[in-house]
């Protein structure tokens, strides 16, 4: 422990003035298998796309084995849910990625792309294609930041120290030894009596 931590100074005066706004929210999707869909992993706060990707790799990329990560600024999402109002602004045709959540107990995952002149048009079409879902999102492909296809995300070293299953075997063995100890002591006592 550092000296600084051992002798934390007695606080004095007011806290420094607040710096201002919170960071901006980014939504993170991870691809668990090569060529598989990108599934919703969660969200995080960052100041820009580069910082979002850096945090996403650290936080979500190390969570479970994954091959690629997408990060999306939250305002870029147009959805059928109230959280993500869809933009009706018309422009040149763009490619939109569709995400669908099938039911309450499932997570959003990526599906086909649609070319459209606005997010609202893309969303309407995506809903028409597959209406029986919980939530549909569309995001312009240009707004999705992605890791490279050959990026190393999951560390290829032994990570079992940070997983429950990394302890299952040794814990079981140690419990067996602890629980057998009285029996073992009893047995040794009996054996000693017999032998001497």
């Amino acid at each position: 422990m550092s000296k600084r931590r051992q002798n934390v100074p007695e606080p004095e005066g007011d806290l420094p003035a607040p710096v201002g706004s919170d960071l901006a929210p980014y939504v993170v999707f991870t691809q668990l298998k090569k060529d598989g869909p990108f599934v919703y992993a969660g969200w995080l706060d960052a100041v820009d796309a580069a910082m979002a990707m850096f945090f996403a790799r650290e936080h979500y990329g190390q969570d479970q084995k994954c091959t690629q990560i997408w990060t999306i600024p939250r305002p870029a999402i147009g959805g059928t849910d109230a959280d993500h109002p869809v933009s009706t602004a018309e422009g040149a045709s763009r490619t939109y990625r569709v995400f669908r959540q099938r039911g309450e107990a499932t997570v959003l995952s990526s599906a086909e792309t649609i070319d459209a002149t606005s997010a609202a048009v893309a969303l309407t079409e995506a809903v028409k294609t597959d209406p029986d879902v919980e939530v549909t999102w569309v995001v312009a492909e240009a707004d999705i930041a992605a890791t490279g296809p050959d990026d190393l995300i999951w560390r290829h070293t032994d990570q079992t120290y940070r997983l429950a299953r990394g302890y299952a075997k040794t814990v079981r063995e140690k419990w067996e030894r602890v629980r057998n100890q009285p029996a073992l002591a009893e047995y040794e006592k009996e054996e000693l009596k017999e032998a001497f």
Partner: protein
Amino acid sequence: MSGSSNVGMHVDHDLHDDPEKLAEFESRVADGHLIEHDDWMPDAYRKGMLKMAEHHANSEIIGALPEGEWITRAPSLRRKLALTAKVQDEVGHGQMLYRVSQDLGKSRDDMLRDLITGKTKYHNVFNYPAPTWGDIAMIQWLIDGAAIMNQKTLADGAFGPYVRTMKRINMEEAFHFKSGEDMVLTLMSGTPRQKKMAQDAFDRWWYPSLMFFGPPDKPDAENLPPMKWRMKTVKNDELRQRFVDRFAPAALDLGFVINVVEKDADGLVVAKRPDEQLRQDETTGHYAFTEPDWEEFYRVIRGGGPCNRQRLALRRLSYEQGQWVRRAILQGQAGLPPAA
């Protein structure tokens, strides 16, 4: 780690709520639907959920402090890696829960500042000291164990964002608990000195872990908003009983003596005697036990615990030392860290 069971949860119906909307909300909750943060909800529910999620988030980041002190002193490289990952997980839990709270309408900076100034609280259990490696083993076994039991029931709640966060957090808690169990098993199969270290730590942590589930329930707990609205789903006393039924026999198997203790102002045990109440009822299967000292519990909540001052002073130091980073990224101001 952590959990939000002992947040002072006083939630009242607001007389101004539209009775029709309130009835619809309550029937959705009763039918097992999840409430999302943009759904209509009683004002008291929004405030109560914010208080609960914020308290939980505060607890996660303060809870990392006693364990963080031991990273440099871990007894092996694998234990050091595991403890580092565990502390990182806890701070990550804090991040996730601050996000849930932000969606309920409070900015992260306000939450961090309110924690430091004492306007909001964190879990009582983190006001106790961790003087030995045995304490680290006990925190991961007993406190993370208690946190899993509590958070599993919170994952059956009604508020969607909080429920989903609990599910995710619980996966990581399983690692914390298992590695704690491994450490306790290692100490209790070790030398007499290791066993003594573990027993002393057990004496320090057994009662804080029983208090973890919060004070005894009010008689009509089921009908009060926190349970009626499924912000929490199981009563404190019931959770405490489940914990004792699970951990008392395991502790006895390991060779621990379960003691009733007296502590000094530093949280160290000055007197102990075996808990004479502790035995299994043959008909119900439940273990009887001596109740925690609830006066101590309230004293610690009010700031009179052995480590309250130390924890908040360190949190404040971190906040002040991080200010230049916030300025740099939020206002684009170049800067240098303050001299250490």
